[in-house]
């Protein structure tokens, strides 16, 4: 590394060609912006689909179906599921979306049996506005996830009209669960009567189990129970269900990683280009530096630090820019009523910074090596 006394010298070198430096920073920031956006999507997929040891929710869906329009299970399956050994609690749920297709602004209503839902989820929610009591009181009341409320600009007391359902915003909640952030919870009977004009049919059952280690065993027992029923079921852990239902979307996001790699290559090329050009401009200066006693290793390190600084400043501009846009937009990709949140976070800032440093070092290596190997006489002759 270099001594701190050289930092002002390097900064002066960077701002010497203001236009060129700004262009380089702009390019690096743009590429890092895209990289962080892609990483945020990948992170969202991981959060929504990767199971952890504590996950204990199973989703019971109609066999061979993923779209909530086509999964129709009789509500009377409920007591049979509850009787299965290892099942702690069951919440019947009707899911209504404006469209099963994938997009960024899909609204998902989840109709839930109020008492059962409150009993199971009260502790998961942190109320930002309204209250559970308000939600219980009105039959058309909706409990909105924070992301959905922010995206649609809704507050407590507003009327919310989407997917053919008109509801009253009784509460806005914050939750760690990705699937809670982008939905509107309403009363089950209200949604059934509004959409189907009849009671008794739900889209899925959310089942909590006693022991997370027995998830697969219990899922098999549920499916065996309804194997010969009119509507056979398919039961999977919640995150595995999301992974399978949103497989198309996840595949598409997987492809985006190549775009992320391309962005990093672009950062490398931009920083390297800037350093090469600036080193070419300063060959004579390097000769003078060597004449007054700077050794070749120090000159090399000064050049590498210059690359790191450009990489870090541009990288931070892009990273924070992406974070601001993602935070402000509260985007999530939705398919079949399931959400994959686009989420950035502190870890992405740290990795963005680390990548910028590494790319800055790599970009400066070759010009630094060339500059440090050049003899004083050759430097003076080169001009």
């Amino acid at each position, binding site marked *: 590394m270099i001594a701190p006394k050289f930092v002002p010298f390097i900064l002066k070198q960077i701002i010497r060609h203001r236009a*060129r430096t700004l262009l380089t920073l702009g390019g690096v920031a743009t590429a890092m912006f*895209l990289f962080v956006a892609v990483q945020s999507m990948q992170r969202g997929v991981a959060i929504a689909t990767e199971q952890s040891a504590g996950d204990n929710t199973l989703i019971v869906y109609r066999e061979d179906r993923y779209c909530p329009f086509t999964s129709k299970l009789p509500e009377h399956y409920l007591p049979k599921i509850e009787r299965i050994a290892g099942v702690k609690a069951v919440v019947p749920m009707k899911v209504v979306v*404006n469209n099963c*297709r*994938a997009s960024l602004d899909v609204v998902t209503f989840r109709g839930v049996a109020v008492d059962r839902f409150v009993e199971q989820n009260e502790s998961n929610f942190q109320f930002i506005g309204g209250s559970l009591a308000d939600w219980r009181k009105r039959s058309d009341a909706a409990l909105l996830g924070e992301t959905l409320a922010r995206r649609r600009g809704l507050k407590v007391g507003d009327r919310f009209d989407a997917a053919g359902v008109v509801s009253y915003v009784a509460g806005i909640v914050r939750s760690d669960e990705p699937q809670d952030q982008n939905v509107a919870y309403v009363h089950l009977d209200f949604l059934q009567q509004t959409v189907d004009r009849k009671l008794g049919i739900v889209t899925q059952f959310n089942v909590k189990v006693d022991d997370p280690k027995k998830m697969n065993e219990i899922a098999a027992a549920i499916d065996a129970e309804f194997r010969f029923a009119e509507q056979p079921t398919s039961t999977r852990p919640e995150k595995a269900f999301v992974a399978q239902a949103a497989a198309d979307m996840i595949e598409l996001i997987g492809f985006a990683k190549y775009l992320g790699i391309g962005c990093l290559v672009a950062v490398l090329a931009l920083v390297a280009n800037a350093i090469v*050009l600036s080193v*070419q401009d300063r060959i004579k200066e390097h000769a003078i530096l060597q004449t007054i006693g700077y050794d070749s290793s120090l000159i090399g390190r000064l050049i590498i630090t210059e690359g790191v600084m450009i990489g870090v400043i541009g990288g931070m501009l892009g990273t924070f820019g992406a974070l601001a846009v993602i935070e402000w937009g509260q985007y999530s990709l939705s398919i079949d009523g399931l959400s994959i949140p686009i989420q950035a976070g502190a870890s992405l800032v740290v990795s963005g910074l680390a990548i910028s440093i590494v790319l800055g070092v790599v970009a400066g290596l070759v010009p630094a090596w060339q500059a440090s190997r050049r003899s004083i006489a050759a430097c003076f002759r080169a001009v």
Partner: protein
Amino acid sequence: MRLLPFEYAVRNLGRSPLRLVMSVAGSALVVLLMIAASAFVRGMERSLADSGSPRNVILLGAGSEESIERSEIKSSVPTQAIASLRGIKSRLGQAYVSPEIHMALTVGIAREEQSTSQVVVRGVEFSAFLVHPQIRISEGRMFQPGNNEIIVGKLASTRLSMSEQHLALGKTIWFDDKAWTIVGRFEAPNTVMDAEIWAPLNDLKVSAKRDTISCAVLTLADGGELEDVSAFAASRVDLEIVAMSESEYYRKLIAFYQPVRMMIWVTAALIALGGIFGGLNTMYAAFASRIREIGTLQSLGYSRRAIVVSFVQESTLAAAAGALFAAAISLILFDGLAIKFSMGAFDLRMDGAALATGLAAGLILGIIGALPPALRCLHMPITQALKAA
């Protein structure tokens, strides 16, 4: 104004082969991406826009205007529409009314091997061919109701990520826990139907255990009006249906995908912006090293404007070469490429507009990349420029 010879710009390009390669490659990359983004968006829009006919009206469940798959109406609606409406087209006594079920289902080559991708399975009667004249059976024959036979669209294999062999005539596929035999293949170019599977309406009803249909599509006769059908839908409150033009339905689907299209354009624009930053940087360096040459040209009598024009020619030539290269590559790689996206599939369209978008981006890249550095270099007084290192 006396311009510099065109050859001056051309020869200057060869002065630094590495810089030329970088400029051409950078421009090619940006243009390739712009063409791909444009082809994707246009292919998706076209497949939706061409799917609807302005003379077709869809009767579907109230509140399900955004998605037919969600709609459920009584099976008697088509008959009631025929009995009540006068403006429906008919031929040899056969009304152009098609009762249909649209379901998004997973499909597999065996009972236990279901694809994770969903495909739209459409249950239809023979009248579907009257209201959807875009459909052509390209291989095999039409299904016979009652035998669990199906016909599959040309892009269904893309949609399901299956090989064509698995969807060949005579093969069996599984959906809804039943085996279905493929007896025909159809084409409906540039429409969503191209990626669908069609089954007999009643067979699908039995299999899905439903007694409702998703919608009824009817074709208006000359003089028939959408308003008449809307009035029928509004007057039959008991049926809980609405009438909408088929074109309008697909227009709304295009609007539904607006955020996705925006995301694609923003990504392409950001990459183009990165390309412009990189290009400008390279040009700044290229022109800055020629300050003395610029001073010489000015002292020879060439105006600043003529020098700028020559620099823009130089930059535009490199960018245009990259753009043409990208256009050729995209025609080879992308044209007609089937893409699956969100319950459907469509062909990438390498049409005039997509190519024009890419080429325009290349030219803009060339002009914007040269102007600011050229103008900056020309600010210097001639005497100072001639003294520059």
